């Protein structure tokens, strides 16, 4: 029995068409608890595609992805949605917050979709998460009233709403200035160090990647290198 939170076994993704395009080719890897992983590679190498496959946002053409040792290939779309809701948290390059809702409501959305907590507890937890990322004073604001860095912190808070063990981040600092980049990266690092989460982040920034535990380098959809640092960054 694997202790891996996420495991990819010979995963490939080919886009059908007159000329089929291979995005990911035969990648196998395991993501363990409390890992801080960078997926790196040149543009168009298949980093994001690999992340979407690991996050069940996309289905592999061949191979399979296991979450907590369970194959997701045989799951229904609803079951995969349930896994995304409870076991995975997503942060994208652009904040992808719902513009008509306040940031508290945005953070509350996954909890409301899950429906395990009463409404008051949901609001309390959303506010607590926002407080912990220094956004307590902005809880009634809508995303367009915040800076880019603040929005991205809200997105991280939303990813943590249902307390998933794994956070998947696609270029989380890609659209941020250097100050915000440092802040958001610090938050992601603290998620691993202080909250015991596993963070898998696609990044172009080799400097940030060098500060992470493990670096998975993808070239032309293939796993070119999987390097683990000697000691936690």
């Amino acid at each position, binding site marked *: 029995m694997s202790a891996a939170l996420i495991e990819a076994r010979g995963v490939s993704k080919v886009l059908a068409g007159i000329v089929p395009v291979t995005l990911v080719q035969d990648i196998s890897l395991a993501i363990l608890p409390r890992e801080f992983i960078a997926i790196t590679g040149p543009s168009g190498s298949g980093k*994001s595609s690999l992340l*979407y496959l690991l*996050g069940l*946002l*996309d289905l592999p053409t061949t191979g399979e992805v296991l979450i907590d040792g369970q194959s997701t290939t045989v799951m229904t*779309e*609803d079951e995969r*949605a*349930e*896994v*995304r*809701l*409870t076991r*995975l948290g*997503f942060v*994208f*390059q*652009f904040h*992808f*917050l*719902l513009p*008509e*809702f306040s940031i508290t*409501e945005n953070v509350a*959305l*996954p909890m*409301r*979709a*899950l*429906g395990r907590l009463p409404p008051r507890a949901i609001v309390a937890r959303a506010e607590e998460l926002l407080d912990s990322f220094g956004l307590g004073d902005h809880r009634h604001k809508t995303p367009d009233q915040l800076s880019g860095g603040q929005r991205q912190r809200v997105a991280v808070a*939303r990813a943590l709403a249902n307390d998933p063990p794994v956070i998947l981040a*696609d*270029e989380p600092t890609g659209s941020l200035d250097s100050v915000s980049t440092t802040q958001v990266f610090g938050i992601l690092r603290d998620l691993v160090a202080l909250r015991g989460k596993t963070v898998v982040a696609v990044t172009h920034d080799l400097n940030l990647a060098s500060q992470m535990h493990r670096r998975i380098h993808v070239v032309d959809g293939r796993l070119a290198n999987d390097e683990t640092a000697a000691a936690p960054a």
Partner: protein
Amino acid sequence: MNLILTIAWTHVRHRARQTLVAIAGVMTGVGFSIMMAAMMEGSQDDFIRTLVDALPHISITDELREPTRQPADIVYAAAEFHGLTPDVRRPGIKNPMATIASLQTWVPGALTPSVQSKAVLRFAGRNLTTSIIGIDPRTEADVSNIATHMKQGTLNSLYRASNAILLGDRLANKIGARVNSNITLASAEGASMNATVVGTFHTGFRMTDETTGYVLLKTAQVLERQTGIVNEIRVRTRDPMAARLISERIGEQTGYKSISWQEAQEDLLSAITLRNVLMYTIVGAILLVASFGTYNIISTITHEKTRDIAILKSLGFRDHTIRAVFIVESLLVGLVGAVLGWIFGYLLTRGLASLEFKTPFSDYNHLPVLYSVKHYLLATGVALLSSVVAGYFPARSAARLHPVDIIRGAT
């Protein structure tokens, strides 16, 4: 608030102008549907009510259901008859009082004998063919509402003179007769008599008011030159709608031709049914057109919210939740539109009912309308159903969105 409702409400609230246009579409559809149904059913009800009030619910006449067979026809399989002279005298209903007594034991309602006759009415050099109805004033009020339509005199005025007659007011005006005028009646049977006008009535039906006169039974029998004849038994049932079934049973029991008001007015009732089909088709079409507005707004929102849908799906929202969000949005538009449509429809109906007009066929001076909860519920039901259908297709497309396609496009 429920999560689906929260998202749906937020979406429609933030597209205020488009939402209001869609709501206005549903409101107009529902409003006009209610008004049309109120007008059509109101005029139909009024027409039927007047018809039911003016006519006997069941008319039993002295015609037999099956023509009498000749004795030779019964004996021989193939027989031909030439030169037979049928009896010119109307047979009348045999033992009419016994028949009435027998029917009274089970028919829910009232029965009265009458004599139908035709006569030429002469007065001041004018001749008019008139339907003469011989009645019993003591029981007539139980089967018709002629007593309530008297303008001058009463039914009992028929006892005032030896040959008394009540005339329709239009008929009286046409010949220039007034109460106490002496007129002459000449029947097709060759009988002629002087009669005194003792009253006038006004039913509101032009045909009746222009061509009908009421006399006592015995006066009509004299005109028919058949003492004691009763050629019609008129029945008023407690439930007018049950007349058809009761009529069939009477026909079976007595062997005489028994016609309910529905049967007598079958052509008109068929026309009303056809009119109803047309009405509901038009009402449906109005609401269908309104649903295009709903489809438009939901499609627009779905299109604008593609990225949000991808986000929600990536967060773990299920397809049916996404679908439900957009169906609830169209339901919100439909529901608000329907509620506003109730008010609009009510006001339109009130406005229509207050219009005054004159028709040559009757005395109505206001358009009859019917206020019925059924119309409101029906219009709301159709509006909500078309809203759901209008919202379903964009909702289905939204639920089928592949989040990765949108996220890739956005990044």
